[in-house]
């Protein structure tokens, strides 16, 4: 008698919280988009997705991880659409048959942010390669993503152009956090290290400390985003129709207008360019 009452109480507690709810959700119409932290953390997707859902009835579930992980997840078929920013990796994804076709969506740019003290003396520079040479020469701390993300790939490319062997400096002035953009910015601000970040994440970042943009405006800091439907022939679970509807919307006039209309503190964070090929490649 007592025992039953006791166990009954415990079960009532969980039942009250709706243990059965996951089944109800499975019936809804949704797609999963594997995307990057910059698009989600900046608030872009939260801002533009409701319009798509209202129009089509398709809910968009966003998994925001680094570009490297997003591509791996999509390769495993754990997502219907891939929205990332590492063009060569995206093209490889399509060439290997994991994705159907790649479309340009939008671009923004990378910036190098650093402490007010500016130990490498690069503030105001528009030549990112020269600035990175100066950071290396000064041995000024630099915090890298170190996580195979799109931003990390872009950063490694710039070090290569600067002729700096960062592997040799790893653990010294070159510090790989192995985490997301926000976590790396937190670490960079905490230890006074320069960081290469996409501008969208930087503008919306809430823990800037005395940091500001040190280098910007170099063509080599161009950051292109692309969208790809995961290949339903590789993964039959892919919701090809709904996924393609999302891609069509995102690269069509409504989606492009929504992207252009997204601002934080009056600044536009992403610039739609689905209609044309990128002028420069980042």
């Amino acid at each position: 008698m007592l025992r039953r009452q006791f166990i009954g109480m415990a079960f009532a507690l969980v039942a009250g919280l709706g243990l059965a709810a996951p089944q109800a959700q499975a019936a809804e119409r949704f797609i999963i988009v594997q995307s990057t932290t910059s698009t989600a953390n900046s608030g872009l997707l939260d801002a533009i997705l409701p319009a798509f859902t209202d129009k089509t009835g398709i809910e968009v579930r966003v998994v925001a991880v680094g570009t490297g992980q997003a591509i791996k997840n999509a390769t495993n078929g754990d997502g219907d659409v891939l929205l990332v920013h590492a063009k060569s990796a995206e093209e490889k994804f399509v060439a290997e048959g994991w994705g159907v076709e790649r479309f340009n969506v939008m671009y923004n740019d990378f910036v190098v942010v650093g402490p007010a003290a500016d130990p490498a003396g690069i503030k105001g520079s528009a030549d990112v390669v020269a600035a990175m040479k100066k950071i290396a020469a000064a041995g000024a701390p630099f915090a890298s993503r170190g996580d195979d993300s799109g931003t990390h790939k872009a950063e490694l490319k710039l070090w290569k152009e600067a002729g700096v062997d960062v592997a040799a400096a790893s653990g010294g002035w070159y510090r790989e956090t192995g985490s997301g953009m926000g976590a790396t910015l937190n670490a960079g601000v905490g230890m006074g290290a320069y960081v290469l970040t996409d501008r969208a994440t930087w503008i919306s970042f809430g823990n800037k400390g005395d940091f500001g943009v040190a280098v910007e405006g170099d063509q080599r800091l161009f950051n292109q985003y692309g969208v790809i439907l995961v290949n339903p022939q590789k993964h039959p679970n892919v919701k090809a129709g709904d996924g393609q509807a999302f891609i069509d919307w995102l690269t069509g006039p409504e989606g492009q207008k929504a992207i252009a209309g997204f601002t934080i503190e009056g600044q536009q964070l992403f610039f739609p360019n689905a209609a044309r090929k990128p002028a420069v490649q980042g």
Partner: protein
Amino acid sequence: MQDFTEPFSLALRLILAGDAELLGIVLLSLRVSLSAVLIAALIGMPLGAVLAVGRFPGRAALVVTVNALMGLPPVVVGLVIYLLLSNAGPLGVLQLLYTPTAMIIAQVVLVTPIIAALSRQVIEDLNGEYAEQLRSLGVSRVASVPTLLWDGRYSLMTAFLAGFGRAIAEVGAVIIVGGNINHVTRVMTTTIALETSKGNLALALALGIILVAIAIAVNAAVGLMRGSERQVAHA
């Protein structure tokens, strides 16, 4: 110098505002972790009891293994469950990845060893007191398990709460198998991780304070349940 008063006032304001978004996140956290702990208890407590009273070859090795598994890293559990539930994995057909169910599964794996190991200790101690009496009544080892579990229920509550503490606090497993999808699989800990990565440190800390408050409330509720039942039992 960091201002530590802001997170507290922010936490208080968030609670008082009764924000629907926050409430949804809190309820999902509770649903996932309480479900996981209940399932883990249903597996772990009998398992612990069998380990306590059973005499079979390999028992000592099993006890060491279960004890060691208390230290399973959540990220590793998340990764293994991800690989199993992934569309490229053996259980992909179930379509459970990025659902609360996947999060419950991951937490069950994390919590079961904790509950089993602590239950084993409780039951072993209890068995030391009762064994002779039970044997004299002709009760076999296996048959004594339900009695021991029932008589040890107050002490086993601690095992339950230890499991709950682990489940509600972990972020490594649920962020991988749940994906931290807004309104679907976003729980307290993944929200805290997200706000930290956005640099909203005060908000992240405020959410942390709320999480601790919830944990205290759950512990208090279990304490009350225990207290009221004891009164009934002695009446």
